[in-house]
């Protein structure tokens, strides 16, 4: 009976011991992926920002500029691209919509970002765009890979349509989480005019006047290293119109200047979401593998102990009684 029990325990020990590395190195890379149907909105604000007033033809300080950013997973498009890409793909249609303190339209920037659901590496397919212009991203955008490393990443800048390094600057505590802080500075760069501008101004009209649009930003992200999700984002963003003497009476005029920060309720919401998702990732990468390894070791020890007891010499072995045969002379 003890030998049978020890064999069952041995089978269970091997089962759990084998599950441990299989979960971590086989199941996790295949199961951990960004769902293609994700929908997420974020509100950011720049208090006391400078904005170009197209009616007055001058820069004015406004109490608040609000940026509403929506990410929407396009499941149908991701299925189409997966057929040719041969891997799990996520298609995010995003819209960054900027409003002034009176809720009036300032600018908008639609994007389509296509990426590998597991590694978050960009995938190039028809439809990848920024504000209607086809682009080819070399870097990540919006989200870091699962199990983010303490290193620089290439990050796509939607204004200049180029990728540049975003630098890992250290590990900090944020709302009870240990997060990685990343920073990217884009120096003054000439960038295209948005397709839609206030008062119906078009890029063609702006170009006819000889205006050029320039932009500089310092981009900051606090990223949860387990999920790769940013829990907070800020940007010190500046935009200028140059060669503006004919229209504005001076060569340079500020189109926007402000320190953009996530609205506090969205920070709390994002932190709660990240905390929930990081538990799922940690289950596959840490809690279950280590738990199963411990359980496997304990079961193996128990199995060996039972086996040893069943072989102990002092233990009466099960015997069958045999009657002595009669002796005959």
């Amino acid at each position, binding site marked *: 009976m003890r030998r049978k029990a020890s*064999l*069952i325990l*041995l*089978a*269970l*020990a*091997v*089962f*759990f011991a*084998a*599950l441990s590395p*299989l*979960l971590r190195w*086989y*199941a996790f890379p*295949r*199961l951990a*992926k960004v*769902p*293609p*149907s994700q*929908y997420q*909105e974020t*509100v950011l604000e720049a208090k006391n920002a400078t904005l170009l007033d197209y009616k007055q033809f001058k820069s004015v300080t406004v109490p608040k500029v*609000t940026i*509403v950013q*929506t990410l*929407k*997973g*396009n*499941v*149908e498009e991701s299925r189409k691209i997966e057929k040719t890409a041969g891997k799990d793909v996520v298609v995010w*249609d*995003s*819209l960054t*919509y900027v*409003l002034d303190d009176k*809720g009036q*339209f300032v600018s*908008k920037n*639609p994007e389509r970002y296509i990426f590998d659901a597991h590694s978050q590496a960009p995938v190039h397919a028809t439809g990848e765009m920024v504000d209607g212009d086809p682009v080819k991203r070399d870097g990540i955008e919006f989200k870091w890979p699962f199990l983010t490393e303490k290193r620089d990443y290439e990050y796509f800048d939607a204004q200049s349509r180029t990728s540049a390094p975003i630098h890992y600057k250290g590990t900090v505590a944020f709302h009870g989480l240990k997060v990685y802080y990343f920073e990217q500075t884009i120096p003054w760069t000439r960038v295209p005019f948005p397709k839609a501008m206030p008062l119906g101004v078009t890029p063609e009209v702006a170009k006819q006047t000889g205006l050029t649009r320039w932009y500089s930003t310092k981009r900051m992200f606090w990223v949860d290293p387990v999920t790769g999700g940013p829990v907070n984002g800020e940007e010190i963003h500046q935009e200028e119109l140059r060669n503006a003497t004919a229209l504005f009476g001076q060569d340079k005029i500020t189109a926007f200047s402000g320190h953009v920060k996530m609205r506090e*309720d*969205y920070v709390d*919401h994002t932190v709660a979401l990240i905390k929930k998702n990081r538990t799922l990732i940690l289950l596959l990468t840490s809690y279950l593998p280590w738990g199963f390894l411990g359980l496997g070791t304990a079961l193996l020890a128990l199995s060996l102990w039972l086996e040893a007891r069943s072989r102990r010499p002092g233990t009466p072995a099960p015997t069958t009684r045999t009657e002595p045969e009669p002796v005959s002379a």
Partner: protein
Amino acid sequence: MRALVAAAIGLAAALAIVLTVSAIGGPEGSTSPKPLLTTVPNAPGAVPPGK
């Protein structure tokens, strides 16, 4: 010999479970009916579907 068979059964069961779960994967879901926003929501998740 019986110990080897027991270990092989344990290993096979672990492989079968992990391979099956990995092959099935997670649910894909469908595209959200919620719009790309052009107004400021009052609170996170306050956007009604199809608004």
